[in-house]
């Protein structure tokens, strides 16, 4: 990603946060607003970040993935179902159940990734169609099983949805411990550390999403695996000539992509709220896709774009909180529809190429024929 787009993204986030600070100035001091706004942004951007990473891995290897939405939805459902089954049917304790739910979600995502790989790599189905099939299949599968498992005849749960064992809790990031000796007696320094602490006061999947961004960046651009992945996505024939197994590389990366989308799905039912409802991903897989393109097929670019989308969502949440102190001339901002439009319009502007051109991998979407 070029500096122009980073500057653009940075500007949007600053404007969104600035607007919230101004609106809420009478209710909470700027520093509190800023940190809580950033914290919310990171939290709500988590599934978008992971979904966008899923797209980056698939598409860098040359497989277009518009099935992120379906992979997320499937994973969200099976993760939640897995946790409930462990908890209620096999009488596991709370935490093992949740953990197994998390693993189930990742596996479910990977399985949908496998389906996408089989369709688009082995059977050379048009990859956009393949992704659409995954999206439709996910809606049908989760809708059917959700109804059948809990309300169908012979249901193990007798016509009602049992309580889930719960969700993941905030993790402690040891910033204070690390920085106390460094800061010494400087209160300014400690203020900064405290502010950082409240921004990073996140749950495990949110934290791992940030780590995964940098891990993905390293893997894609600094390892042999990454070089090979990009080679099969840019010029599979050349990669094949030098002995890289194109099909295997593509399979592996689509599976990784599926697993990442699975983790994104786990965010909804294992981390955010411990419940499932049909269609709960509500288009966030598509926003991830947009974030990936917005970020020009790079992990860090995708993450910053996901943060823009997260910030506009956080903006809406904060506007609801400041409802009673909002000055009348700003009242229109409360209409979540107004600010809700920003990410979509931005994506379309980005796609026009006004703010730097996006360049997909050269062989993205093209099945490999020997």
């Amino acid at each position, binding site marked *: 990603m070029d500096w122009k787009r980073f500057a653009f993204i940075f500007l949007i986030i600053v404007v969104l946060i600035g607007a919230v600070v101004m609106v809420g100035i009478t209710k909470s001091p700027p520093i509190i607003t800023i940190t809580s706004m950033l914290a919310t942004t990171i939290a709500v951007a988590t599934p978008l970040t992971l979904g966008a990473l899923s797209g980056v891995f698939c*598409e860098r290897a040359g497989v*277009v993935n*518009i099935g992120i939405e379906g992979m997320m939805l499937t994973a969200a459902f099976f993760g939640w179902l897995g946790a409930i089954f462990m908890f209620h049917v096999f009488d596991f304790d709370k935490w093992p159940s949740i953990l197994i739910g998390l693993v189930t979600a990742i596996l479910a995502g990977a399985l949908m990734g496998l389906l996408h790989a089989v*369709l688009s790599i082995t*059977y*050379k*189905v*048009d*990859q*956009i*169609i*393949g992704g*659409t*099939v995954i*999206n*439709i*299949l996910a*809606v*049908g*599968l989760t*809708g*059917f099983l*959700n*109804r*059948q498992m809990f*309300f*169908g*005849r*012979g249901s193990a749960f007798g016509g009602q949805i049992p309580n889930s064992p719960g969700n993941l809790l905030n993790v402690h990031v040891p910033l204070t411990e690390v920085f106390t000796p460094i800061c010494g007696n400087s209160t300014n320094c400690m203020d900064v550390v405290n502010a950082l602490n409240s921004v990073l006061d996140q749950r495990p999947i949110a934290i791992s999403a940030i780590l995964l961004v940098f891990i993905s960046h390293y893997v894609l651009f600094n390892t042999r695996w990454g070089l090979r992945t990009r080679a099969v996505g840019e010029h599979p024939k050349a990669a094949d000539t030098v002995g890289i197994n194109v099909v295997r590389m593509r399979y592996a990366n689509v599976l990784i992509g599926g697993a990442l989308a699975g983790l994104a799905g786990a965010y909804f039912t294992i981390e955010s709220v411990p419940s499932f409802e049909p269609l709960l991903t509500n*288009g966030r897989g*598509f926003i991830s*896709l*947009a974030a990936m*393109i917005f970020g020009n097929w790079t992990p860090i670019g995708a993450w910053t774009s996901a943060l823009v989308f997260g910030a506009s969502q956080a903006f809406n949440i904060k506007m609801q909180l400041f409802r009673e102190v909002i000055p009348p001339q700003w009242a229109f901002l409360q*209409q979540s*529809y*107004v600010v*809700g*439009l920003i990410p*979509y*319009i931005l*994506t*379309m502007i980005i*796609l*026009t*190429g006004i703010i730097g051109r996006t360049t*997909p991998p*050269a062989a*993205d*979407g*093209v099945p490999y024929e020997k």
Partner: protein
Amino acid sequence: MQSETQSGSVTKGFTRSALDALLIPLLAIFTAVILGGIIIVSVGGNPFLAYFGLLQGSFGSAKALSETAVWATPYIFAGLAVALAFKGGLFNIGAEGQLALGATTSALIGYALPGWLGMDIPAFIHLPLVVIVGMAAGAFWAAIVGFLKAYTGGHEVINTIMMNYIALNTISFLLNGPMKDNAPNNVSARTPLIAESAQIAPIFDGLRVHWGFILALLAAFLVWWMLTKTTLGFEIRTVGANPDAAKYAGINVKRTIILTMAISGMLAGLAGTIEVTGLNYRHELGFSIGYGFDAIAIALLGKSHPLGVVLAAILFAAMRNGATRMQFLTQLPVDLISMLQALILLFVAADAIIRYIYRIKSQGERVVLTRGWGG
């Protein structure tokens, strides 16, 4: 010039190719039905009773037939929209937004115009006006995407998805605010009822099937005629098959892309308009959800051929309509239908699987439906 020889071929060749085109979808449906049966057995249901219920609920009586036609009407329009775009090498995932926008604008003209003019409008002016406005709204919404594709290369898949959300957000705002039904005890986000002069009449007394269904069949014929018999249709198909060749043949590719999207959006807008004028007499938030993907499935199942789209739309409509009867007879959830439809679509899309199972040789070259982000 392959298309020339195709359209000029003799009847025997036509039936032959029609059979070939039908074979894969039919086998896909058959395979999905078998797999669906296995799923039903595995959850302890009776597949024969379930499928019997499905058939009885969709074709078993005059009322069932009428309801199937009611379901099929928007499916045909929206399926045609996606199919036409496919023919032009474009993937319109935005049928849902175009449909919702068509429904919203025609509802607005339907209920508010008499008030604005301060008089009753005769039906022969009001109804066509409402339909035209709905069509224009859908066409406009999709043409924006076509314009961006033609002049900036912005991919239509992403842009139609974004336009969906922009449309749905805007419509949520309108239906919760300026356009909300002010009836005393209304809490839902919906418009007031449209004037009687903007309503399409039912075909038979006592049944809900309306003239919109006939209009949908007519639209399918017109799309077929346009695609095969007119210059525009030839241009659309040529640009869809090979934009570079089209350019060298002197076709204005940019104009064709915009026109293809506009006509596609117009058809999707019609789907919404006809639902408002013929069935619901108002637009309600959430009604349009799911039509976009169903339309894609129908277009794929129909192999993007207008007749195929009509058959696929009737099949999907019958499944949706028969599902209630199936649930009544077997206590299986209605959502089973979505599973079945997804399986059908899976096998249609991955025809290689079907060819492998039934040992069918591949016929000629593959049809390019969409291209990667770069194209």
